[in-house]
């Protein structure tokens, strides 16, 4: 298990390695004016933004995420109909580009005659809400544990590593299903269940990030100046591990969205008639043989959203990776 944690971190750290600039190829210490290994590599803000502007993946991801976000926000305005209103005379109408399709239901309707476009738009809200909500909870739990473990080491580290291993040993999907089955499915339950289950990656990455800066000079300076531990953690450690935190958070949001979709697909997530994309796929399953769009459309929506978030997260990671890491 320790190796997995190390591997997970090492791949993160390695993937944080950016394409080296000329001076770094000579060797970090050989480059004229290269930063001392014990001080924090200062990164000009303008530098980061410039790199961000020329990173295609980041730009595409950011644009898509923003677009979906706006669509979700404006769902009440953009949706042509009420996503919940059924019309049994208009069941399973194909999307506008198929034969028999029409603009009155641009993405068709489902088995109960509900407009698909509206349900997709409102479904975006569900996905984003659950994604952000669960990740926020997981981030708080995981970051606290990881930073404490990384900063204090010793017993704290042992305890946190142990708890992480226990969490990893539990089959997350099964446990989530059990919880939702026994407590009842609703938005709040799903968010909390996911949040309390997916914090492990935060703990692992934040622990590693904290360890990497723990020995740096400016932390010793703060300690020597008599700063209290909470203050050091908040004002010195946190700003510098923020980069890693943002990257992990972005990628975990994507994972949380997929997790919720899977739960809803199995019927133990968000409950009908709420328009969760996973639930829509599940409801459409029995009709998919002759009307593939009922699963293709929500599936594509999920794919695009998760892809966009992953591209954004990978892009942020590429762009904010510190220089001169061996």
């Amino acid at each position, binding site marked *: *298990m320790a*190796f997995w944690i190390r591997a997970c971190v090492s791949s993160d750290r390695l993937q944080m390695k950016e394409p080296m600039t000329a001076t770094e190829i000579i060797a970090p210490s050989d480059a004229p004016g290269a930063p001392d290994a014990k001080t924090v590599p200062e990164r000009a803000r303008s530098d980061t933004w410039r790199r961000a502007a020329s990173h295609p993946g980041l730009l595409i991801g950011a644009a898509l995420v923003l677009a979906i976000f706006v669509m979700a926000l404006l769902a009440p305005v953009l949706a042509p109909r009420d996503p919940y209103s059924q019309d049994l005379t208009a069941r399973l109408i194909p999307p506008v580009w198929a034969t028999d399709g029409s603009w009155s239901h641009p993405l068709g309707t489902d088995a109960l005659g509900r407009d698909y476009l509206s349900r997709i738009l409102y479904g975006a809200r569900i996905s984003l809400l659950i994604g952000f909500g669960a990740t926020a909870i997981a981030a708080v739990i995981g970051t606290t544990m990881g930073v404490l473990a990384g900063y204090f080491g010793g017993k704290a580290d042992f305890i946190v590593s142990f708890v992480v291993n*226990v969490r990893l040993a539990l*089959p997350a999907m099964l*446990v989530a299903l059990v*919880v939702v089955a026994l407590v009842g499915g609703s938005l709040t339950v799903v968010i909390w269940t996911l949040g309390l289950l997916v914090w492990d990656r935060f703990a692992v990455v934040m622990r590693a990030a904290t360890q990497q800066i723990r020995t740096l000079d400016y932390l010793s300076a703060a300690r020597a100046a008599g700063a209290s531990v909470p203050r050091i953690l908040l004002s010195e450690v946190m700003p510098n591990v923020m980069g890693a935190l943002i990257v992990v958070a972005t990628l975990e949001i994507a994972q949380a969205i997929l997790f919720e979709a899977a739960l809803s697909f199995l019927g133990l997530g968000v409950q009908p008639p709420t328009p969760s994309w996973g639930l829509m796929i599940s409801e459409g399953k029995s009709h998919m043989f002759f009307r593939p769009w009922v699963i293709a459309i929500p599936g594509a929506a999920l794919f695009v959203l998760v892809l966009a978030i992953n591209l954004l997260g990978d892009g942020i990671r590429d762009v904010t990776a510190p220089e001169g890491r061996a």
Partner: protein
Amino acid sequence: MLTFALKRLGLTLLVLVSVSLITFALVRLAGDPAVAIAGPEASQEEIEALRIAYGFDRPLPTQYVSWLGDVLRGDLGYSNILQRPVLDVILERLPVTAKLAGLALVIALLLALPLGVIAAARRNTSIDRLALSIAVVGQALPNFFFALILILVFGVTLRWLPISGDATFWHYVMPAIALGYFATPAIMRLTRAGMIEVLDSDYIRTARAMGLPRRRVVFKHAMRNALIPVVSLTAVQLGSMLSGSIIVESVFSMNGIGRLGWQSIQRTDLEMMQALVLIIAVIYLALNYFADILNGLLDPRLRVQ
């Protein structure tokens, strides 16, 4: 090496005990087992009688210890829903999941390892970008959706493969793909990252400086070291495939323990749920333990003190 193995074993057992505690607490907290066994029609007296008969009236810690004792003796409980011992049912269904996960892993490795190595050796070329694109796309596709697409394309439209059941090898192909593809990006990225780091290392430079041919340097000298973390990751992926098997087995109607878990939740088969979580955790921990040992064997720095 022996101390290494023993220390790991000790830690693993500790984790296992914690898992069993959490599992027990989870199931007990969520519902009244006596009610679950008795069924919705039972009267209050019947429920009480059941409670005493099964020992649910004892304090919780006692129940836990007693359950744990049973488990250690091989008795995982009795499913009242299925009217069979839990262990029997699980053992019946385990082979299906094992075969499925095994095939899924083979598929994942066959795709991920070569891609990772080649992408690293040909960094920043089109094949590298292709590999990374595959990884990015693979990680964004929900597995249940992919499973349904596979069914639509290969099962219904092309009719090449059967879409449900687990009778023959061909029944396993689509489910294995649906289960395995999600592991491919992670393994590929780790392989690639590991290879890049190793190929940049000083000892690879030494190998080149001594005139060793490039292919040998990459495949013999570099891979030996780069693949060490991949072993651990593979074990973890295998473990998470057990989780993912719930979905895949349900979609493809295969009788493995994933679907068993799903069914036991639907039927509120508490004994089964409890046992399954524990069994899956045991399998995961065992896989990780063996991965750790394998790591110890592969990396001489750990092996020889």
